[in-house]
């Protein structure tokens, strides 16, 4: 089974900042988007159990190499990194265009994407890709089970109060959640093996894309302003022993008519 995992390199959580154009500054240290690591873990477990290989696909700046290396050390087979200065400032449509072009050059039975990203949260890339590539789209997966004959895939899709069981023919695109299971730590052996794994780098030209079709110039939306969240009122920290602290918390809540 060939699983293709979409991996976005995002600023290390907690260090996000905006650049002069009000876009997420991705010249800082990058890590794999947390949710993408959950679907990578699911992909690794599936290929370990049923055979096959996991290819990573990432579109992003040179700093994406670090999270790709880590994902290879976790056990992915190879990585494809699409990097081109002309992509800077792309909107979701532009990014989806690049990913679509890359996916058309790769072979897969399943494409995995994380539920959303810690630095963007547009939540549209995965469904946009499914639409552009004509793939069945299975979202919010908490379990992924390909059929033994390799023709269909079944997932559990989370919904409030339970889950639905969905089936689709392969190839398909699955958007997975953290319920799939904690990602592993790379082992030291994995880190050493990753040294010899292939990281293919593609430019827009390699994908047959016109540089003018992506990037800030082709963006369909424009960021006008970026506001930080409103400052919250100062927190009250109670450091007493539990027996005293509980009474104080109760008083505090009661004074605000919260209990």
């Amino acid at each position, binding site marked *: 089974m060939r699983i293709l995992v979409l991996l976005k390199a995002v600023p290390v959580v907690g260090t996000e900042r905006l650049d002069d154009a009000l876009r997420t500054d991705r010249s800082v240290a990058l890590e794999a988007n947390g949710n993408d690591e959950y679907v990578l873990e699911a992909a690794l477990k599936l290929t370990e159990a049923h055979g096959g290989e996991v290819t990573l696909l990432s579109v992003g700046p040179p700093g994406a190499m670090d999270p790709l290396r880590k994902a290879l*050390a976790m056990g992915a087979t190879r990585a494809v990194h699409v990097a081109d200065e002309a992509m800077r400032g792309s909107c979701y449509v532009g990014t989806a265009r690049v990913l679509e072009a890359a996916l058309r050059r790769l072979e897969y039975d399943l494409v995995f994407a994380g539920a959303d990203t810690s630095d963007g949260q547009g939540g549209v890339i995965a469904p946009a890709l499914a639409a552009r590539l004509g793939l069945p789209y299975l979202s919010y997966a908490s379990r992924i089970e390909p059929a033994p004959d390799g023709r269909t895939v079944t997932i559990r899709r989370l919904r409030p109060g339970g889950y639905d069981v969905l089936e689709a023919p392969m190839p398909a695109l699955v958007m997975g959640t953290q319920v799939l299971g904690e990602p592993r730590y*790379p*082992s*030291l052996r994995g*880190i050493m093996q*990753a040294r010899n794994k292939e990281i293919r780098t593609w430019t827009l030209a390699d994908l047959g894309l016109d540089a003018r079709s992506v990037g800030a110039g082709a963006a369909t939306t424009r960021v006008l302003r970026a506001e930080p969240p409103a400052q919250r009122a100062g927190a009250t920290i109670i450091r007493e022993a539990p027996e005293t602290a509980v009474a104080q918390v109760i008083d505090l809540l009661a004074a605000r008519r919260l209990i």
Partner: protein
Amino acid sequence: MDLDLSPEHSLLRDTLRDFLANEVAPVIDEHERARRFPTEVVSKLGPMGLLGIPYPEEEGGAGLDTLAYAIAVEEISRVWGSLGIIVAAHTSLGCGPLHVAGTPEQKERYLVPMAQGKVIGAYGLTEPEAGSDSGGTRTTATHQGGPDGGVWILNGGKRFITNAGQAGTYVVTARTGTREDGSAEISAFILDADTPGFKVGRLEEKMGLHASATGELFFEDCCVPANQMLGPRGGGWRTFLQILDGGRISIGAMALGLAQAALDASTIYARERRQFGRPIGSFQGVAFMVADMATDVEAARQMVYRAAWLKDQGRDYGLAAAQAKLFASEVSKRATNDAIQVHGGYGYIEEYKVERYLRDAKLTELGEGTSQIQRLVIGRKVLDLRVV
């Protein structure tokens, strides 16, 4: 000259930081307070390859280099000194002699499971009368003929043995005779923990490193098959000197990690703690302490990494390792002590952790050669004289 870490070394460091923060940091206090060996934590290290970092894959190791090992011990000790010394003693002292002097059969039987982390290792050299003067070893091994080369009968005892009672395999030294010049002939033996006649005695109540086990070993007519002699007869001394050279890098790395932890804690505290209406770090008295700590830590790091790098290049690293160990351990004591000073009264309270760093750091000036022994080693190498 490239002073950047390779992508693999960086990834190793980042992976360890994640792992330590998520899986290890939350359980430290309970183990330190109860003086309990962290069996569960240690059992997670093996599958990650952290208990045989610098040994080749065919010997059960992760196949990385000494620099990677030093970085790992540094990062582990930065979070938990006890775990740092458990890993360092297992890797350098437990696995090290087998890697250096083991036969292929001994490596297969003992080193592979140890480097894979399935069995913990320990090294028994120190005795009540043989600390810095390891030549004063009193434990004896007497040969008795028999099939397959016969057996060696060990009698005596060891003291201050890290991982005592936790190890499944011990490498111990014993006198196997007297040389022509009257000096002791020292040989090394591999011992299974369940060998009849071998037992672990008292575990010490230490000043620091409370979750690591340090104890006595006793041999009473302890019978070891001849094929468990490690290295040639009388080769124990040579092996041991070689092992200590490497071990010094790991103790230097441990000292470095503790010093870095002290610096990290002091930096945060000096920025957050306010007195007289401003952060205490904005007073020179505090800022200069932090500045000295940061400078010391950086110098120690360069020395430890360089000693590891020399070893990885197959070059002579004995002097560099002794210098790195000496410097890093003294930096560690200073930095951890100053961290308490930066924290003021809070530094004296367990909750703020820096008092633990000082208690743990003190060991690095004692273990694997005291600072005085390091100066002796360095003095001899620099002067090319028999300094005593």
